Each structure stands twice: as structure tokens, then as C-alpha cells.
């Protein structure tokens, strides 16, 4: 199989080396992202250990159905992204483009659900401040963390939607060669990290105090 030369960039002479370098660099970036979200999770852990009961009471106010539906949507988007990456490697252009498109649709669906959820949270006065709905001070800490963590996650997700959308459109217009292109693999890895972060957030935000 000859390598498509138009995705090869200097200083690499072989595509396999370029791919390895790109994947390695992205994993280093993902490790730093893990520590970035890790800081927020640590803050959550410390405050939760200090206020175990209040965190459970506050967690009960989140919307379990939006949270669960969004988890299912994001898991499915990771599935279509994984198929897209596999298809790009096996030179199946159509399947790659369709799966990239499906991933974008699922990503947008997540953002729409999140928007409805945020609107409901605002209606229920769950934004920390003067008119906050719960009387315990630590409940405001829980919701401050809720807003920061989910918003930062949503920003990451929006960047992912942009990157995948770009690949899908440029791939369909044949402006980008999808076959064996390191960009597809790197974008897929980033998207899966966004999914991983959500998987960790889900039990910490939505599953508390439901029994």
C-alpha cells in the first residue's frame, strides 16, 4: 500500500513516524488535560469530604434524566468516532464521513440537552448568589463546581465538534485526505477524552442522594 504523500508533513519522511509522533504528542496533551480536570475533581473531593451531607442534598437537585440521556448520547458519539477512525485507517471514505457526521450530530445533541438543563437550573435558582434556592452555604460550593466543571467540559466538547465537523466537511469536499491521516486519529483521541471526563463527572454530579 503506497502512502498518500499529501498528508505527510516535514520533518517526517514516513507517514508511520508522523502518525506515531502526532499520537504521542496528543497523549501528552491528554495527560495534561487529565491534571487540569483533576484539579477540579480534587476541589470537589475536598469539599465533599468536608460537607458530605450537604453535597448529597445539593446533588439531588440536579436533573438525573438530562444527565443520564447525555451520558448515553456521549457514549454513542464515542462509538461512531471510533468507527470513523477505524474506517479512515482502512480507507473507507464514505463510512468515515458518515460516522464523523454522526459524531457531530451527537455532540450537538449533547449541547442542546445541556442547554435545556441549564435553563431549568436557572429557573430553579441553582446559580450561586443572592437568590440561591438552598440555604446551606456548602450547597453553593457544590453548584459552583457543577457550573464550572460542566461548562469547561462543554467548551471542550464544542471544540471537538468544530474539529470533527471540519474533517467531515473537508473530507466530503476532498480537500483533506482522510485515509491514514493522523488528524483523524488525533481528533478521535481528543473526543474520547471528552467522553472520559463526562463518565467521571456523571456519578459525582447526578447519581447522588437518589436512593
Amino acid at each position, binding site marked *: 500500500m503506497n502512502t498518500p504523500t499529501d498528508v505527510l508533513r516535514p520533518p517526517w519522511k514516513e507517514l508511520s513516524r508522523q502518525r506515531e509522533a502526532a499520537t504521542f504528542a496528543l497523549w501528552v496533551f491528554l495527560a495534561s488535560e487529565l491534571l487540569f480536570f483533576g484539579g477540579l475533581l480534587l476541589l470537589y473531593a475536598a469539599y465533599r469530604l468536608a460537607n458530605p451531607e450537604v453535597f448529597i442534598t445539593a446533588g439531588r437537585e440536579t436533573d438525573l434524566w438530562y444527565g443520564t440521556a447525555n451520558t448515553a448520547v456521549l457514549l*454513542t458519539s464515542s462509538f461512531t468516532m*471510533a468507527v470513523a477512525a477505524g474506517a479512515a485507517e482502512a480507507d473507507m471514505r464514505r463510512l468515515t464521513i458518515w460516522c464523523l457526521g454522526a459524531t457531530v450530530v451527537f455532540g450537538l445533541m449533547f449541547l442542546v440537552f445541556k442547554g435545556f438543563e441549564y435553563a431549568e437550573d436557572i429557573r430553579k435558582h441553582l446559580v450561586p448568589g443572592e437568590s440561591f434556592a438552598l440555604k446551606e452555604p456548602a450547597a453553593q460550593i457544590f453548584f459552583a463546581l457543577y457550573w464550572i466543571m460542566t461548562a469547561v467540559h462543554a467548551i471542550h466538547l464544542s471544540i471537538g465538534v468544530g474539529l470533527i465537523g471540519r474533517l467531515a466537511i473537508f473530507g466530503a469536499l476532498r480537500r483533506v485526505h482522510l485515509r491514514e491521516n493522523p488528524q483523524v486519529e488525533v481528533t478521535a483521541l481528543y473526543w474520547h477524552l471528552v467522553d472520559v471526563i463526562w463518565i467521571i463527572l456523571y456519578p459525582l454530579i447526578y447519581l447522588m442522594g437518589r*436512593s
Partner: protein
Amino acid sequence: MRAQISAIWRKNGLAWLALLSLLGLTFGAAHLPLGIFNVVVGLAIASIKVTLVVVIFMGLGSSPSIIRLAAAAGVFWLAILFVLTLTDVLAGRQFQSAHSQTMGLEQSLDRNR
């Protein structure tokens, strides 16, 4: 080609089904009155889901060792961050006499000021 297509769908499809089943499981388990174990079960199932995504979707299972090392480094530093920050909580659980049971993290932070 056909075999290749079905291999891609089968591998990722099975992982997807497993992930959705685990989501159902964690959703159900959250409704059982397990006390402190609710959060333990929730986090345990989350880590199984993360492992499935990382090993199968992200292909870490078949990656070169330099990439596994990069991933492991992230987890390693995260573990140091958590263990060192929460040392007094972990120690409090170990030595109940030194730390009274009711003392929360905030109070122990206050005492150090």
C-alpha cells in the same frame, strides 16, 4: 474489505453495548440504599467504563509503549496530587484517636492557618 468492515463494527459495537449496560447498571445501583457504598459503586463502574473507552476506543491496548507511558504518567501525577492533598483525611481514617471522627477537612485546614 467486508471482513475488515465487520471487524470494526463488531469490536466497537461490543464496547458500546457494554458501556450502555454499565450506564444502566450504575443508574440502577444509585437508587439502592447502600449508604457510603453508593459513591463507591458509582466510581467503580465509572472506572470500568473509562477503561473500556481508553483500551478499546482509544486503542491503548495495542499502542506502542511510549504512548502507554505518556498515559501512565498522567495517571501517576494525578494520583500524587490526590494522595498528598488528602493525606490528613487518609490519616484521619487510619488513626481515629489522633483525629476525632467528626473533624472535617475544613476544620483541619483552619487549624493549620
